[in-house]
């Protein structure tokens, strides 16, 4: 399922990575933020929504990077370059991520910044939407969000253009040993 997901997600311009442990993923994140020159300046910093992933790592390593914030407000998220959140499921046949985005900070960090990094437990993979719908519970999750690639538009001359209102890059990190509800 992972391979199918990767092909489909890359087909809609998402970037897909896979790691064995949270520590591996953390190392990738640290490098990534450095490469993107994340720093404590308007338009250059990173916001992180609370997640089980954060509980599985040495959070200090992230917190030590200047310009990484964990207390997400809408004003903060609006000025961020990178947003990190955890998503709950991945649908292999369309390359789609699904997130219980009831908590507002998850929506803010996955929508407002230019780059969204989505952490996901590999066990959250599902073959397709009907399989996921059978698991989903709208009584518990008030805001279920599906994300397939970055924000896109073709409203000017049908030319596909990335990053209109939402992120221009979607970076997906699968973690095999993340565990969690899935």
């Amino acid at each position: 399922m992972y391979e199918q997901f990767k092909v489909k997600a890359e087909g809609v311009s998402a970037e897909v990575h896979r790691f064995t442990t949270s520590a591996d993923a953390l190392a990738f994140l640290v490098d990534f933020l450095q490469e993107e020159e994340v720093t404590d300046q308007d338009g250059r910093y990173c916001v992180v929504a609370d997640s089980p992933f954060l509980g599985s790592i040495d959070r200090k390593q992230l917190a030590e990077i200047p310009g990484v914030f964990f207390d997400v407000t809408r004003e903060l998220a609006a000025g961020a370059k990178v947003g990190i959140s955890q998503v709950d499921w991945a649908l292999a046949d369309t390359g789609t991520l699904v997130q219980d985005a009831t908590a507002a900070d998850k929506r803010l960090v996955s929508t407002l910044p230019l780059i969204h990094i989505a952490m996901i437990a590999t066990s959250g993979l599902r073959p397709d939407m009907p399989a996921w719908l059978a698991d989903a519970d709208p009584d518990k999750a008030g805001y279920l969000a599906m994300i397939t690639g970055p924000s896109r538009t073709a409203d000017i001359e049908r030319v596909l253009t990335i990053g209109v209102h939402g992120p221009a890059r979607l970076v997906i990190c699968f973690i095999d040993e993340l565990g969690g509800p899935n």
Partner: protein
Amino acid sequence: MQQEFKTSIDRALHDANLTGALEKFSEAYKVNRAKAYEGIDFEALRGHIAERKGYAAAHLKELSARFQKNAEAKGAKVFCTSDPAEVREYILRVAQENGVRSIVKSKSMATEEIHLNSFLEKEGIEVNETDLGEWIIQLAGQTPSHMVMPAIHMTKEEVADLFSKEVEERLTSDIPRLVKVARQEMRPKFLRADMGISGGNMAVAETGSIVLVTNEGNARLVTSLPRIHIAVIGIEKLVEKFSDIAPILKALPRSATAQLLTSYVSIISGQTPNSDGSLKNLHIILMDNKRSEMAADPMFKEAMQCIRCASCLNVCPIFRLVGGHVFGKVYTGGIGTILTAWYDELKSSEEIQGLCIQCGACKDVCPGKIDIPGLIMEIRRRLVKEQGLPLLHKSIYSLVNNRRVFHGMLRAASLASRPFAKGTRFIRHLPMFLADLTDGRSLPAIAAKPFRDVFKTIRQPKGLPEKAVFYAGCLIDFAYPEMGEALIRILNKAGIEVVFPEDQTCCGAPARYSGAYEVAANNAVDNIRALLAERADYVVSACPTCTVALDHEFITTFESLGETKWLPQARELAARTIDFSTLVKRLVDEGRLTLKEGQQLGTITYHDSCHLKRTMHAEQAPRQLLEKSGYQLTEMFECDVCCGMGGSYSLKLPEISAPMLKRKLTNIKNTGAPVVAMDCPGCVMQIRGGMDQDGAPVRVRHTVEILAEQLED
């Protein structure tokens, strides 16, 4: 048609930006759509959607109530109304009670339907559309030209001009840069808005959830950032179960934009927290506005199965020429014609229904399995019933209804047309007000001797084991009798005697396609009498439009009129009716007819006639026969797109018919084949006439003419 409408068509046809963009899109769409549906059983999928949406349409009251109960249990306030004015007032009241000064909106056709923006702006509230296309349209002060791609008619230069004014900076037409400008401009509007208004692609009764489908992410912001969210949703968006989301989400993006899934889908079930920890003030308005009347109509309830993908616009050969503005209302294209007739009033569709050429392309791709052309026909029928036929049509159809007078006139026309034919078999120019008819296409000269007279001189072998009744139809009878002769030669070879009942008359298609069902019903009765008088093994026709009349439409015409008297005979006739190519294919397969073997006749291309392909589903038989007879088949681009004939359509809207013909001629010529075959004498008339004026050395032939030359002696 009103001059104003004709003018708007003319304007659209001469808008090179519009037609260029739509043409490019429609060509890419077909390829991409097919790719998006790879590996999916589309018939099964749309059957599922039609069943689910059909169920919802039949249980609107119950589902509305369930939706309300379940959404309110999750903290939403649900307001159900049939009155657009109440929707506007409700929203204004919520806005005023909460001191709302600024609103952001994500795409909602329902709010466009009720002209919400101008209403709120008059009350001093700032309203910003956030979908890029909608925002462009809003800045330009225009209306959307397409249901999914509202600004498809505008060039990047025009958009750059609009944005330049908005940001007071000279921008170039670099699209990524323009999109970035839009992002920067919209951000503060999102952040300062105190209310977000969205539509909804589905409303799930079982859970009280609403589903929003977007690519840009604006709906996520509209539903997340402001503290108040109002969703305005037409009740046709109700579905019963949470699991009903899956089939609709499988079809909607694939059919709308050929995507497997849009970038974002949000399923909102009740109140969610705002970023300050408070709960969203969530209102859901279920708007009826004549939808339940539509759902109660035995025929139009089918239109409730629409999921608003706009694929009927994307495949329509007329829409790509004229775009959405000529429709004059929010909903455009095939389904838009139907929705306008209901949400507005029947009379509002009077002009736009005439744009439909009845080619059936939309019916093939509709994920809601709606018979869009069939419903447009029903609109025509009801319009004629309500308002009567235009006087000119009335006098024409009263003639058609009297076979002797009608056929007498056609004979007289043969003599009268001779001066224009100038010794050829074409009329290339007609004088004065008739000149439009020969603009870009020569008309066939009416045959000196109609088939009915020729038939009497044909000697058929005696003692043939089977018998077929030949239904010629007006074109073969009076313009192309040689096609009838060819058919007899072929069938005789297979041991079938052909009889030609003299009392057969017009199949009624011209009347029916104009909404004159009573006239069509009279034609049907005359033909049933004539064609069933003699006991035969087959009733065969070489005109797909006539075949469809005999095989389907006599029955549906009677049913539409509630007439039962002739129904059993109509069914008997339908059971015996067969189109020429299917019959011949069968005869060849059974070994009763042999085509010359081992010939190399060169390349040929084949044009699909709308009725043969999309109603009779008989597009393979003629191809197989032509290949078997020694031709090498080279398919043309868009082989099954309508040639623009459409019976009297080419007379009513020659300005649309002509560019359709031109495209067809180009596609035929591009194959390099010296011959194009087709199974419909109407298409032959259109394409042969077009090729004559074009001057290209391509022979335009009916399959029957070609096969008659390739029979093994």
